[in-house]
């Protein structure tokens, strides 16, 4: 019984982490069809900004929830204006350029901070279930994942910006003829996606090893989850995160954590084969 509880918490942890990791990517890929291969580095920058802020005395909650998204959001803004902006419609070039960007960012951080950096302790402490220990932080992550899903939903559905952004996503030419500055929408959307990703990096900082190359562990997982989720930014990300989180943690429990990763990847590939449009291509059609 305790084992089930612990396993459930692990699944929740896996799904919540995935969800947070992918939401920003889903926004960018889903809204703008840009494959940002520097996504992992945005996560890494979120983690680094949190850690650096904490080391300079900033409260950890502020560092995670304010500093990280703000910093990475600004980075995203800069990247969009200086790079992405020239690559809309050039799919392969945007992949190559963002790959170059990812190498560049890794190199930059390594140059500034070296190969390792001290982390931050996991806040909130733990509790006991039977013979096992669990972490309150898992519950916190789950809560944050749900909160972010909710906030993005509210933003896209109930604000003017959200409406305009969705219009631009569906038909940029038409939106432009209605007087929308599509260029600014793209810029804002990319910055938003980056900020959300930065937040994920910040939230995951206490539970990850923080190195300049930590991003590479996330980029494939994030993409495969977004692709598996399909076109619906929220429904797709949420459903794919839950499904893959479940598969990952179950497999890790039954075998080893490494094989857990492998089985997640294999499961994702099989899913894409069966549902080429992703989960939300078949279910949750037409939702956000």
């Amino acid at each position, binding site marked *: 019984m305790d084992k089930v509880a612990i396993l459930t918490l692990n699944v929740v942890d896996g799904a919540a982490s995935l969800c947070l990791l992918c939401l920003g990517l889903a926004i960018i890929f889903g809204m703008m069809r840009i494959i940002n291969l520097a996504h992992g580095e945005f996560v890494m920058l979120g983690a680094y900004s949190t850690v650096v802020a904490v080391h300079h005395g900033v409260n950890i909650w502020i560092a995670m929830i304010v500093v990280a998204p703000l910093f990475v959001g600004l980075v995203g803004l800069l990247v969009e204006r200086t790079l992405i902006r020239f690559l809309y419609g050039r799919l392969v070039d945007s992949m190559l350029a963002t790959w*170059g960007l990812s190498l560049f960012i*890794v190199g930059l951080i390594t140059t500034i901070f070296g190969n390792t950096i001290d982390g931050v302790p996991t806040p909130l402490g733990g509790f006991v279930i039977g013979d096992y220990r669990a972490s309150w932080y898992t519950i916190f992550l789950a809560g944050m994942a749900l909160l972010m899903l909710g906030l993005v939903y509210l933003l896209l559905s109930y604000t003017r910006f959200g409406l305009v952004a969705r219009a631009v996503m569906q038909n940029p030419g038409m939106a432009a003829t209605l007087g929308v500055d599509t260029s600014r929408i793209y810029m804002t959307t990319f910055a938003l996606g980056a900020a959300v990703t930065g937040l994920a990096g910040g939230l995951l900082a206490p539970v990850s090893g923080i190195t300049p190359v930590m991003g590479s562990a996330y980029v494939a997982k994030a993409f495969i989850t977004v692709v598996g989720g399909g076109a619906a930014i929220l429904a797709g990300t949420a459903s794919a995160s839950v499904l893959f989180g479940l598969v990952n943690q179950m497999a890790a429990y039954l075998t080893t954590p490494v094989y857990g990763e492998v089985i997640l990847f294999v499961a994702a590939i099989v899913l*894409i084969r069966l549902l080429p449009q992703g989960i939300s291509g078949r279910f949750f059609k037409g939702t956000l």
Partner: protein
Amino acid sequence: MAGKLALGAQAVAVVAAGVAVAMAPNVLETFDLMQITLFAAMSVLSLSLAFIWGYGGILCFGQTAFFGLGGYAYAVAAIDYGDSTPAIGMAILVPALFALVLGYFIFYGRISDVYLGVITLTVTLILFNVVNSTSGEEYHIGQARLGGFNGMPSVPTFNMPFDPSNILSPEAAWQVTGFALLGVYLLLRILLVSPWGRVVVAVRENETRAALLGYDPRFVKLWTFVLGGAIAGLAGALYVNWGAFVGPTIFSLATASQIIIWITVGGLGTLLGPIVGCVLIQYLVTKIGSQQAFNSNLVLGAVLLGVVLLLPKGVVPSLSGLVQFGFNRLRGDGGVAAPTGQAAEAK
């Protein structure tokens, strides 16, 4: 007339290259010879992706999967057979079979081109994770222990065909590698002017029209993919022979990104460009590695960014365009625009 001249010039170039490969040991120090042996092995890898991407239109981000499988297959087979000759065969066969299965899954599964890159990247990461975790005595194939994150040290290097007692010297190893590169280059060149090669290019040019003419694009892409995998596998064997070592980093993201950079810098859509790009970047990385001022990721990232933004066609096509432009001016054609290299026919 111009065609015949070009053909003649190319034949001369090939013969000259062959002579250069054979004579290099007489001219170069062993250290430099070893260096160009590595460059040549990696150039074969570069050609494999150059072919499937530049001519076949298949953007595979995980060509290292086949490279690594070839390397490991060679290592395991060399240890278990005690002879490098069948091991090289395995290095080609195993990745080719893997490409067949994966390719079937991708091309016959109507997975879009966009996702192909993500999926192949994921595959190479899967292999990295799997092989990385094979430390321990229980992970072995025959007598060959996979070694996990430490890799497999002391892999037997090439010997004379079917004569395990006769190990190749570094000079001979260079010649094998150099001629392998030349051979693969010629093979691809010939393939691309053959009917099959022309169909491969047509499918890339306009898949719909190719299908409407009766060609099955899935079949064409599958076999292009398999050939690319086989060549990458051969490169794997050549690479492992060079270092007498293979480890999980052969599957890593870092290696995978290198190949993409070589081709982007050298010029997509040509065979020579990716070779030039490979040698240039490899040389650059070696030089950076030996100094402390700049991080190699930083430089490589900046190079890739620069090429994509400023020289999107790559160094070789841009240079050759410039050279042609220069020739035209000299001949007095008076400011004819440089050819944009749109012709997909083999250069």
